[in-house]
C-alpha cells in the first residue's frame, strides 16, 4: 500500500500545473470557450509537446505507458483549470479504445497522430433510450458487400463536431439491451450519411447529437471482433469515469480553497463570516467530503488496474457515485457560502460548479453508479 507520488508522477504533476497556471488563466479560458471551435488548437499542440496526449499509450505505439494514476494527475489539474480541450473524448476514450482493441494498422494510423495532437476523436455510444445503460444499443450495423451500413442516433457525443473520426457503437444482432452483438466502428466525421446537431454544453464544452443514415463503413474500420465490443465499451466507460472522478476532485479542492478564503476575508456584522459556527461546520463538512473524495479517486484509479472486470466496475462505480454526491454537496455549498457573488458568471466559482454538475451527468450519474454497484451485490457469494 502506497499513497505517495513516485518521482516521475510528481514531475508530471508539476509540469501540468505549471503549464496551466501560465497558459490557461481563467480569462484566457473565456476566450477559448467563445472561439469558433470552442477549444484551442494551440493549447492542444502544447499538450502534445508535453507528452500528455500519448501518456497512457503503450511504448510500441509511441506512448509513455502510463496508467490510470497518471491520467488522474492530469485530470485533477485540468479540473482546477477548467480545461475544455477534448482530452476525455480523444485521449481517454478514443485512444483508449484503439489501444485496447484496435489492430496494428488502426493503432498505427491513429495513435501516433493523436499523441502528436494531429487527430481528434469522439466516442458516439450513448443513445436517448439507453440513458446510461452501457449495453443498450439500437443503432444498427448491417453487412453490405465487404463493408457495413450504419443507421441510428447517438446523443450528446462529446467533441463530435471537431473530431476527425467518431467511434460508433452499433448492433448487428440481438435485442437492444443484449450484451452480445455490438461492434465498434471508426466513422469519418464527414462520411456520407453522418449529420450533426452540434451545440455548446453548460460547462463551456461542446457536443453534438449524431444521426447516422446508411453510413457506409469499410470492414477495416471495425475495431475489435464483430459483435463482441461490450467488454471494450465498459472498460472505456470505466476509464473515462475514473478520469472524471479525478477531474471532479481537482474542482472540489479548488472550490473548497476559494470558499475558505472567502470565509476568511468577507466581513459581515463586523467580523469575517468564517467566525460563525454555522458556516464553520458547513466548511468542515465540505472538507470531510473533499478528503473522502480524494480517497475515492484513488479507488477509481486503482480499480482500473483490476484484471477482473466486475471488480473494476465495482470500484469505479463506487467512486463515481461517491464523488457525484460529494460534488453536488461541495458545489452547492460553495455557491451558498459565497452568497450572491457565487451565482454570478464573473466568478470562477460558478464555472466550477457547472462543470461538476455536468461531470455528474456524464457516463452515469451518482444514482446510476450507486444502482450499478448495488446490483453487483447480488452476485456476491
Amino acid at each position, binding site marked *: 500500500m502506497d*499513497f505517495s507520488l513516485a518521482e516521475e508522477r510528481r514531475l508530471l504533476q508539476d509540469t501540468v500545473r505549471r503549464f496551466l497556471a501560465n497558459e490557461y488563466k481563467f480569462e484566457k479560458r473565456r476566450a477559448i470557450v467563445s472561439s469558433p471551435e470552442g477549444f484551442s488548437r494551440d493549447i492542444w499542440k502544447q499538450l502534445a509537446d508535453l507528452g500528455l496526449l500519448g501518456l497512457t499509450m503503450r511504448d510500441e505505439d509511441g506512448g509513455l505507458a502510463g496508467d490510470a494514476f497518471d491520467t488522474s494527475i492530469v485530470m485533477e489539474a485540468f479540473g482546477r483549470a477548467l480545461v475544455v480541450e477534448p482530452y476525455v473524448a480523444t485521449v481517454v476514450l478514443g485512444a483508449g479504445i484503439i489501444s485496447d482493441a484496435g489492430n496494428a494498422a488502426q493503432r498505427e494510423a491513429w495513435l501516433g497522430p493523436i499523441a502528436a495532437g494531429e487527430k481528434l476523436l469522439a466516442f458516439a455510444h450513448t443513445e436517448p433510450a439507453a440513458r446510461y445503460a452501457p449495453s443498450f444499443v439500437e443503432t444498427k450495423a448491417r453487412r453490405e458487400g465487404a463493408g457495413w451500413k450504419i443507421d441510428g442516433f447517438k446523443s450528446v457525443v462529446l467533441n463530435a463536431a471537431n473530431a476527425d473520426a467518431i467511434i460508433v457503437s452499433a448492433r448487428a444482432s440481438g435485442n437492444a439491451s443484449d450484451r452480445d452483438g455490438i461492434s465498434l466502428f471508426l466513422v469519418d466525421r464527414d462520411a456520407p450519411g453522418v449529420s450533426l446537431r452540434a451545440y455548446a454544453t453548460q460547462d463551456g464544452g461542446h457536443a453534438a447529437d449524431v444521426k447516422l443514415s446508411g453510413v457506409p463503413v469499410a470492414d477495416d474500420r471495425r475495431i475489435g471482433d464483430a459483435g463482441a465490443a461490450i467488454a471494450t465499451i465498459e472498460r472505456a466507460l470505466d476509464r473515462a469515469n475514473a478520469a472524471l472522478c479525478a477531474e471532479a476532485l481537482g474542482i472540489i479542492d479548488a472550490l473548497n480553497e476559494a470558499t475558505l478564503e472567502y470565509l*476568511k476575508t468577507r466581513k459581515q456584522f463586523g467580523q469575517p463570516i*468564517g467566525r460563525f459556527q454555522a458556516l*464553520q461546520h458547513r*466548511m*468542515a463538512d465540505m472538507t470531510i467530503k473533499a478528503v*473522502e473524495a480524494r480517497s475515492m479517486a484513488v*479507488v477509481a484509479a486503482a480499480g482500473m488496474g483490476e484484471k477482473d472486470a466486475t471488480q473494476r466496475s465495482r470500484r469505479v462505480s463506487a467512486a463515481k457515485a461517491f464523488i457525484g454526491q460529494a460534488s453536488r454537496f461541495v458545489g452547492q455549498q460553495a455557491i451558498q457560502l459565497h452568497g450572491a457573488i457565487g451565482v454570478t458568471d464573473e466568478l470562477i466559482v460558478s464555472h466550477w460548479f457547472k462543470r461538476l454538475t455536468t461531470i455528474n451527468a456524464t457516463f452515469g450519474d451518482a444514482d446510476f453508479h450507486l*444502482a450499478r454497484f448495488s446490483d453487483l451485490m447480488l452476485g456476491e457469494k
Partner: protein
Amino acid sequence: MNLDYSVDELAFREGVRAFIAASLPKALAAKVHEGKRLTREDFVTWHRILAKKGWVAPGWPVEFGGPGWSAVQQHIFDEECSAAGAPVVLPFGVRMVAPVIQRFGNEEQKRHFLPRILSGEDWWCQGYSEPGAGSDLASLKTRAERQGDHYVVNGQKTWNTLGQWADWIFCLVRTATEGRPQEGISFLLIDMKSPGVTVRPIRMLDGEAEINEIWFEDVKVPVANRVGEENKGWTYAKFLLGHERTGIAGVGRSKRELKKLKEIARRERSGGRPLIEDARFRDRIAQAEIELIALEVTNLRVLAEEDTRRAPGPEASILKVRGSEIQQSLSELMMQAVGSYGLPYVPEELDAGWSGEAAGPEYAAPLAGLYFNMRKTSIYSGSNEIQKNIISQMILGL
C-alpha cells in the same frame, strides 16, 4: 501509488488470522457475532489471551511491551479481530491511560501500572465528564485538595463506561480555581476500592447498564498517583483524546457489521422474495458500503502518513465523525432489515445460553437495542460538533 497490501502485510494478516482462529474461544466469537451480552469475564478472557501472545497493546512502544507494529499492521490486526468476532480490547487502560503514563508518568508509575494494564490485572475506566461538564470539559468541578502527601477528592463523574467492573479510574480533577479553567486541572489515578467511591449504574435507552455515575466523597488519593505536574492535566487530557481517535474510525467493526447486514438482508423476506432483491433497500446497503470504502481508504491514508511522518493530527476528527456516522447507519439498516421484528423487547434473549422461545429470527433480538445504543457514537469522545470545531480551527484556521 497503489491500494494493495504488500506481500509482507499479507503474510502478517495470515499470521494474525491463524492465531485468532486457534486462540479465540468459539463460544465467545459466537456471542459477539450474535450480539449477545458480554460479561466482564468475556473481555478479560480475550485480553489475557492477547497479553500472553504479546499482542494486547498494538500501539505501545516496544520498550513498554508493544509488538512494534506499523500503523498499517495495527489496522490489519484490528480488521482480523473484528472479522473473527473477538471482543474489543477495552480502550480505557491500553489506549487511553497507558499512553499518558508512558509519556508523562514517572518511573514508579510506569513500573507499577503498565505491566498490570498489559496483563489485564487492572481494569481501568475513565473519569472525565461531569453533570455540568460535557463538551465544555474544562469546566469540570470535581475538586482535589492537597493535604500532606494526599489529595482529598470530592465531586461527581458521569457517563463512565463499564466502571462497575473497574479496579482503577483515571480522573481529571480541579486543583486550582484561578486563571483559565484549563490551567487548574490535574490528572489523578484513583483506586476504585478507596473509601468514599460510590458507583451507580445508569440505565440506557437500550435497557442496558453500560455506563455509570461515580461519586467521590472525601476520597484520599496519594500524591504519588498524580500523573505529571499539578495543574497541567489539561495537556495530558488533550494528548489522550488525540490518541483515542486513532482507532475510532472503527473500520474493522463496520466491515463486520456490513457483512452481517447483507446476511440478514439475504435471509429476510419481503413480499416472499429475499429482501436483498428489493432494489430500494439494497441501494441503501450500497450507499453505506460505498461510504465505508471511502472511510477505509481515508483511514489507510492517515495511517500511512502516521507510519512515515508524525503523530495523528486533526485529520483524526474526520475519521471520528465519519466512522461514527457509518456505525450508526449500519445499525439502523440492520434494525430496518428485520422490519416488525425490531419491535419485540426480550432482554433475556441477549444472554448466551438462554433457552426460551425466541421472538422472531434469532438474529433480530439485539438489533433495535444496537441501533439505540449506537446513537452514543456521535456524542462520545468529543461530539461530532466538537470535532467539526476542531476541523474548523486546526485544519482550516477559521
